[in-house]
């Protein structure tokens, strides 16, 4: 089985703060992995290292066989392979929804405008928001914006999608529409790494759940095992808090 993502011995410091400790982590092609853990445990740091939004200090990271390091060509290729969806959407507010999808293709792939816009429409249709194509992000609801952000990332034809808490900035009534979009994506076979606290989503689509705490991976298990009979005390404590909360 080829590995979509292969991380070994990953260490990351913020100044003297040790944010990731000897993290080994891998994702197979077509696999869906959910990362969870308490706030400050390093989930964002880990997923952001995967497309080098954070630069790691030690260890190796390979995305579809391409090693991340100082080589800029590799970095370009990795960012081509991996799309990312952020907690706060990070849409470009000065561009219309359609331009948000089209312009990145033009700028980073030199796609012709007509083709970029056609593909933009295509993916906006898939996240069911084509009717808002000419609006600006500020005119949409949070859920709609996040679906646009997903479409924008998909327009680059990534092989892996990284999600960093895609629903935590949303009002409760909008979480469903975004999760539905992600479930559809999973059903289509996309390789996905998702940092989320949505345990329902994890049960429904994840092949594996990774539990992190204090910069370390504490436990990795299939969702059924993880939720029903967690092995580590720390995961157990985390899950019990989730239930009572």
């Amino acid at each position, binding site marked *: 089985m080829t590995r979509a993502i292969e991380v070994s011995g990953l260490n990351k410091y913020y100044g003297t703060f040790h944010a990731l400790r000897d993290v080994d982590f891998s994702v197979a092609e077509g696999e869906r992995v959910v990362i969870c853990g308490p706030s400050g445990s390093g989930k964002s740091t880990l997923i952001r290292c995967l497309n080098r939004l954070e630069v790691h200090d030690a260890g190796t990271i390979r995305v579809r066989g391409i090693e991340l390091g100082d080589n800029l060509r590799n970095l370009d290729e990795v960012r081509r392979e991996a799309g990312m969806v952020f907690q706060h959407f*990070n849409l470009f507010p000065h561009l219309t929804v359609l331009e948000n999808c089209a312009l990145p293709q033009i700028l980073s792939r030199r796609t012709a405008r007509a083709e970029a816009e056609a593909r933009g429409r295509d993916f906006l249709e898939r996240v069911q928001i084509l009717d808002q194509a000419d609006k600006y992000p500020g005119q949409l609801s949070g859920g709609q914006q996040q679906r646009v952000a997903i479409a924008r990332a998909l327009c680059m034809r990534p092989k892996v999608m990284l999600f960093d808490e895609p629903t935590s900035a949303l009002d409760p009534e909008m979480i469903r529409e975004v999760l539905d979009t992600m479930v559809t994506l999973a059903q289509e076979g996309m390789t996905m790494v998702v940092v989320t606290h949505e345990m329902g989503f994890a049960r429904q689509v994840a092949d594996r759940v990774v539990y992190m705490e204090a910069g370390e991976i504490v436990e990795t298990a299939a969702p059924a095992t993880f939720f029903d009979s967690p092995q580590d005390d720390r995961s157990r404590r985390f899950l019990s808090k989730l239930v009572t909360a």
Partner: protein
Amino acid sequence: MTNNRTNATAQPSTSPSMVSRGVRIFFGSWLSALLTLLSVAIILALIPAFRWAVLDAQWQAGPPELCHGAGACWSFIHAKLRLILFGLYPPEAQWRAFTVIVLIIALVLATLWPRLWGLRIIGLWAVGLAVMLVLMQGGVFGMSYVPTSKWGGLPITLLLAVLSLGLGFPIAVVLALGRRSKLPVARAVSILMIELVRGLPLVGLLFVAAILLPLFLPPDWTIDKLGRTLAALTIFAAAYLAEVIRGGLQGLSGGQVEAAQALGIPYWKTVWHIVLPQAIQKVIPPLTNTAIVMVKNTSLVLIVGVFDILSAARSAATDPAWPAPSTEAYLFVAAIYFIICTAIGWYSQHLEAGVKARSH
């Protein structure tokens, strides 16, 4: 809806008459009473000025003898219009200077149109400026040669304003990015440039550029005085614009650049298409301010003997044939500045309204 509101404020009296409503608007509180009285005083004070400038004024074109009354002598403007607008530029070639004015206005209007923004408008300006320089200088296509020392009036004012802002802007962008750069050298150089220029008065900068610089440069390095003046205005504009743009960059969330990186957009394209448009949108009011100040700053070039519209008007006013016309001359120039600066203000409001409409 408006009815509801007036009713709500008019609770005590059930049917407000016109008179009582008027009293409430103009004398409803101490403050509004004060403002009303002040406004009346200002209007009364302006009546003599209005009579002087309009009612008693001489509007006809003609010789100085026409002006003998107590009013303004607009005949003077008629007589000196060419001198004020074009300075010492040779009269038979003034159609060229006039064409330059028209070209500048046309290009500025084209620039206001967002669809042309980007490389297209830069190309348009490059071609337009080349044409303007050829027109002003002549010496080709059968046009007489006019040295820059003979250039003057409105074309100079407009060219200096537009070019110092236009050339200063890209420099300002580089300085602003440099000041926020992670590279210590880039940061140090940017800070030094910005603070040095902001620490000097513009007059001093102009003086150095126009008068001192040639003393230090080798004699065969003859950069034209107008060119040196423009350079001084440009770096002055750049330093101030840089700080304004830096303010806009600071207001930008880091997520924007991260999103662009994650999408694989190269650095300079991110700056040009994602960062700058947003940073500039955030600072339209202070940018407008700087633009207006720079338009008016061009009048300082008269210190180093560059003949802008204000210098031209001053020299027109010294003609002994006309009885004390400097008020009329200055008012005329002030009106031109007022039109330019008000237009800039209007346009910026229009841009801001557009930004606001897009955000909700």
